[in-house]
């Protein structure tokens, strides 16, 4: 019997974690941590971690929508629908709490529907100011984080300054490793497929974070020095929602593209959420949202989205940009025409892929991707 090499072993382990169903996540929880769900990077995982929770990020999954249809209209995104579907089916009953954060109108509505169902787990609605360019908003958000901290302490356990600092350090180290991983993907692009990269990232939202850091560190340590050779795919930049379903990444690979960086809400964008370790921990958590982190539901000036994105794309060396948006996602679709014009004026061709249930429209999207990659080749 040939033993699996350690590098592949780690990849397989993370790949398996990324593909767990919610029931499987529940079966693999660390015994000393309480599972608490959340949706959005505006919820500071660090606070949850410091309170003794394991933060489980809920993401878009392929699921047949049946129960949610009785609560939501057809014209809301698949992410919102699939989250409610899982909740109503009882798949999320293992969570001891859920944290919503104010982002788009659909998520506000989902939070209310969630409350109305009156399940046992506690729910906290974190209000995130829309103005991420204002000192007044900083004060407001700090009060909101204090409210969240109090709620977590009441439900889970004390959060000492030391435990919060340790959690901040843990998540900062994870972001550093992920940043390094993205860099390796540029220097050694054939080592991991796009789908494997997506799985490595996605696994980090559903497993014990200390263990995740160890695994990432090990993966980078044993990363072979000699880059693998292969047919150079067209370097592409991916931007959009929390769309870390590995199938989307495989499609890009199959079409001859190669993701060199992304600005997905579930991926590269979160790497900008580094927290300063020299400030008061709560203030540092607030501070990070007022720098270069930008979700289209928030405001940092009318040109901020274009400028932040263009800078990252230039640095990545991408030859084209793929917009990966959930159908019905207003914040992204409003920004899209001006972003497209802005990027194309800089010589960066773009392609918009509208996505719903990850299990649908695959071939159609593939043809469009192939045409786009061919044009750039």
């Amino acid at each position: 019997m040939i033993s699996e090499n350690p590098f592949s072993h780690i990849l397989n382990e993370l790949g398996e974690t990324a593909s767990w169903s919610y029931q499987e996540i529940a079966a693999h929880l660390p015994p000393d941590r309480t599972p608490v769900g959340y949706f959005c990077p505006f919820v500071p995982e660090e606070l949850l971690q410091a309170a003794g929770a394991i933060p489980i990020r809920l993401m878009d999954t392929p699921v047949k929508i049946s129960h949610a249809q009785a609560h939501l209209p057809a014209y809301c995104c698949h992410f919102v629908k699939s989250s409610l579907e899982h909740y109503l089916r009882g798949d999320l009953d293992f969570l001891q709490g859920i944290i919503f954060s104010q982002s788009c109108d659909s998520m506000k509505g989902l939070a209310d529907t969630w409350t109305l169902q009156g399940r046992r787990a506690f729910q906290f609605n974190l209000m995130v100011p829309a103005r991420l360019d204002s000192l007044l908003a900083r004060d407001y958000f700090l009060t909101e984080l204090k409210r969240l901290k109090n709620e977590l302490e009441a439900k889970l356990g004390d959060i000492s300054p030391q435990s919060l600092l340790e959690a901040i350090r843990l998540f900062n180290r994870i972001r550093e490793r992920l940043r390094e991983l993205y860099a390796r993907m540029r220097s050694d692009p054939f080592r991991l497929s796009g789908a494997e990269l997506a799985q490595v990232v996605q696994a980090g939202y559903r497993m014990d974070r200390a263990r995740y850091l160890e695994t990432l560190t090990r993966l980078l340590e044993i990363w072979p020095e000699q880059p693998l050779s292969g047919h150079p795919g067209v370097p592409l930049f991916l931007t959009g929602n929390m769309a870390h379903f590995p199938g989307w990444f495989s499609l890009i690979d199959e079409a001859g593209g190669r993701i060199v960086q992304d600005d997905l809400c579930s991926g590269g964008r979160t790497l900008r959420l580094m927290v300063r370790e020299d400030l008061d921990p709560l203030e540092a958590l607030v501070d990070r949202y007022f720098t270069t982190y930008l979700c289209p539901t928030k405001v940092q000036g009318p040109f901020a989205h274009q400028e932040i994105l263009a800078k990252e794309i230039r640095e990545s060396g991408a030859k084209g940009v793929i917009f990966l948006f959930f159908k019905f996602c207003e914040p992204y679709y409003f920004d899209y025409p001006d972003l497209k014009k802005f990027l194309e004026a800089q010589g960066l061709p773009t392609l918009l892929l509208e996505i719903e249930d990850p299990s649908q429209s695959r071939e159609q999207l593939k043809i469009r991707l192939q045409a786009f990659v061919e044009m750039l080749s």
Partner: protein
Amino acid sequence: MPTEKQKSYREVKSVKDYRRLMKAYYLMAKNPKWFGKKVAWITSGGPVEPLYAMGVLPFYPENYGAMCGAGRTAVSLCETAEAEGYSRDLCSYARCDIGSALSGKGPLGVLPKPDFLVCGNNICGTVIKWYEIQARAFNVPLFLLDTPFIHNELEAHTVTYVRRQMEEYITFLEKMVKRPFSEKRFLKVSAWSLEAVGLWKEILELSRNRPAPFAAFDAFIHMAPIVTLRGTRWAVWYYKKLKKELEARVRNNEGAFVREEFRLIWDNIPIWYDIRNLSKMLSCRGAVLVADTYTSAWTLRPVDLQNPLESLARSYASVHLNLGLEHKIDKMVGLIKDYQADGFIMHSNRSCKTYSLNQFDLKKKVSERTGRPGLIIEADHTDSRSYVPDQVEKQIETFIEMINKK
């Protein structure tokens, strides 16, 4: 098929004054330079009182969207925006405005260029994106009044946050018009605003009488001054006149419609391009919309003239669309009880997620609490392409029959 003639409807006589008033407003809005005015585009839930206090003319792209819808010019404007890359799934008010700004076409021709923009996200997050687009297109400053959503209670730190932004808003306006803010003028404007809001509330409440003197379809039209001219003497003048006329109707036992057998409540923004037809569909079956959640959104909390900035902050932070589902359930239940309604119709509006997302739950809970049935019809407030009137008529017919059998 409807058999009753439209004359079963009693036209509001003050409508002639209403038309004159709105014509004068649009004349100013179209030609601000003639009147030495700066123009600010503002959202329907935005704080307009400081604008009037500073002599700035507010222009409401949402009202303009409603005008495009009612005048059936919305689809071509939406298509102009769509040709630029704006998805058909986006709010059609925004698409109308963007299409109009791009093409210079629409019921008003070329829109008045804004000197600056004022956006309040108390009605939805959509307006943030929409106003950012226009800030880029016109290259003008944008002020955002951020009012965090109220799922449960209005918290003290939220009031502080909004009040401090109101102060920032005043400083922003001083910079825009290069003139100091006049406290005296602001108090006067606030007093007019308070009076107009009070009158509007009293007008709507007159329809608690049987028969209702003022149908929701009337309110959809006559709401324009409370949105655009709130804080001016003209809104007060007009609503005093309208109220007098409607009080006379109450005294004479005259309803907005000759026949009033079923009293219904409307939820959501109107289907602007089909108001007349919907009104006909209902009236020929003896049904009247006696109240709605939309026009009553401008019965804002009264301004405290001792502390106008703070009370405006509270008021604008807690408008109907910025409140959570429990509040919306309470409001609908309250309307049904206060107006003795037999049922309610909800417009599931593709263009407005804030209004529409929780309607299934809202319908269920309101029916449970009141015992009154609800009907959900699908449409869009201005884009008629996703509306099937025959289907809606069938739904209404069945719904009225069901109420009748109860």
